[in-house]
């Protein structure tokens, strides 16, 4: 209950941060209750007023949030309030009645109309949305272009793709025939409510490594020195990398899983190698890997060696396909 109360308290602030339509609704309700000679549709007025109060007060809002289940955030309890309908009803009554009182004279009605219009527009966010539509469109266009070429080149093949996030997140919406080791729900936690499945740490490691590769172009990723015990996944990854190379990875010399000269001075650091990630990806059934075009020559060469295939260029990426 405390969590619900906390969410209800912060939810109201968040709900009214970007736009002020709930405030406009309250003003309209005041007008409909007290600003008219004749009161109509009283049940609707009573219901809307009660629900608005319930949505604003934290305790009742928390109860409504319990009713709608944890699946939804605070803003969805406002579904119970006919916000658009009652706002439009009040404004329509206000405008037509004012116009009738003034005998339809435009000299008096026009300023009032403009005032209402301005009020309405300023209660929105004047065109600014909560997410960058143009950036999203551009991202999607670029990802679709890559995915289309992949589908064209390997039509009929069952691809299991491992790629940078900007491609992965559009892969399944573009072509549901493409399989992925991890999907959008890895970052959008809300999507996890749709299933009981969870990603093991090895899969999370794959995503982190790929993003590291996209940003730095380097084949090995040093994990942040947290001072904690190394995770099972990282330990396995490190061991497998060593096994794959047949010797202790040189890249790890002085850095990999070796504490500093004295353990007390430096916290433990760990390196996740390209070879370890590739092996893990192959275990997941991946047969198509894209890495960013900014990858170093060393990384490309090591990827070719690990997969025993040649890199191909594809729209600013290196493509590795194995059968």
């Amino acid at each position, binding site marked *: 209950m405390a969590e619900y109360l906390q969410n209800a308290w912060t939810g109201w602030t968040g709900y009214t941060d970007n736009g002020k339509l709930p405030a406009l609704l309250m003003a309209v309700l005041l007008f409909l209750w007290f600003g008219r000679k004749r009161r109509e549709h009283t*049940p609707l007025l009573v219901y809307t007023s009660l629900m608005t109060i319930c949505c604003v007060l934290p305790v009742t809002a928390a109860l409504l949030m319990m009713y709608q289940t944890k699946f939804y955030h605070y803003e969805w309890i406002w*579904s119970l309030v006919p916000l658009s*309908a009652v706002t439009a009803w009040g404004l329509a009554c206000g405008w037509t009645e004012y116009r009738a009182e003034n005998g339809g004279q435009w000299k008096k009605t026009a300023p009032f109309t403009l005032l209402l219009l301005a009020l309405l527009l300023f*209660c929105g966010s004047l065109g600014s949305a909560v997410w960058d539509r143009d950036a999203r469109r551009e991202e999607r266009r670029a990802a679709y272009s890559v995915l289309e070429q992949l589908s064209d080149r390997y039509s009929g093949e069952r691809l299991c793709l491992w790629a940078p996030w900007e491609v992965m997140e559009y892969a399944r919406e573009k072509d549901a025939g493409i399989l992925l080791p991890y999907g*959008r729900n890895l970052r959008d936690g809300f999507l996890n409510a749709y299933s009981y499945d969870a990603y093991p740490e090895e899969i999370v490691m794959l995503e982190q490594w790929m993003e590291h590769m996209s940003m730095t172009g380097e084949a090995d990723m040093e994990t942040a020195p947290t001072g904690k015990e190394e995770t099972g996944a990282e330990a396995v990854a490190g061991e497998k990398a060593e096994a794959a190379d047949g010797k202790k990875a040189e890249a790890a010399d002085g850095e990999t899983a070796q504490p500093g000269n004295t353990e007390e001075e430096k916290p433990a650091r760990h390196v996740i190698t390209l070879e370890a990630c590739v092996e893990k990806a192959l275990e997941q059934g991946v047969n198509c890997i894209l890495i960013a075009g900014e990858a170093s020559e060393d990384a490309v060469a090591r990827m070719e060696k690990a997969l025993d295939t040649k890199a191909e260029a594809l729209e600013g990426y290196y493509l590795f396909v194995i059968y």
Partner: protein
Amino acid sequence: MFGDFLIAGEIVIIGLAAAAHLTAVVLGWSFSRCVLFFAGLVCAALVGGAGVLSVGRIRSGKPFFPGKGDKPALRKPGRTEGCLYAVSALIFLTQLIFICMGDTNYREGDMTVETVGSFLAADALYQVNPMTGFPYTQGIPSRLKILCLPTLYASLSRLTGLSPAIVVWKVIPVITLVSSYAAFTLLSVSLFPETDRDAYREKRACFMTVVSLLMWVGAYQPGMDGFQLLCGGWMGVTIRNLVLLPWLLSLCLRRKWIYAALCIPAEACIVWTLYGCGVCLLFLLCMGTIQVCRGMRGFLHNS
């Protein structure tokens, strides 16, 4: 009224989709078989509906197609009313263009396109994780399995040959937009009845203009009506908030309780609610209780 028929028809289609979907899930049918069953149900409903209407027409002695004299006389709208409807229509048109032309879908927390694509690619319902394409390891909540919208959209995609993205992000939001305007038109008729002494037609026109403006103004964050209509028209919550609820409200004002009750199962089929106890139920209960209390008060006052 046309709006009533449109929305009731949509609820019937949702009901048929839910029936086909649940049958397929329980009996473990493939998606292809589910589509055939759904198409059969829709055809049967169309034939049945046409039959019932025909019998009704024959019994009432009315002609199948109204003649010139039977058509209701269209009243020429007043200047202000005409201007308001023109503005409203213009705004509606811009919203239609926005949905059809713009890449406007808001997909955070939503995976409908991937789910629809999974149904089509795997030829099975809720067997593979839409995010990865691999079979579920732990499964999905049973409440989720009841939701039929992905099956309905996937069936439309299969029957029309359109891609899941086109069906989910273009076709359905346009249908939702039209249905929403139909629902708000019905609401305007209920809010401003002809018995009103004042200029009810002008009020209705003004109401529709403000509603259409509110859809643009409110398109700033998830959960707002405008945002849901313009950027998430395929979602169950959008259909509930912008089609079912305004219609439900108009039915409550017209005291058509049986039709109003239809909205409750419809919501349960399309929105993840607390095992059916969704917004429509609470809304209907509250409105019904307030109206009954008010009626009793009036009755006691008169007696």
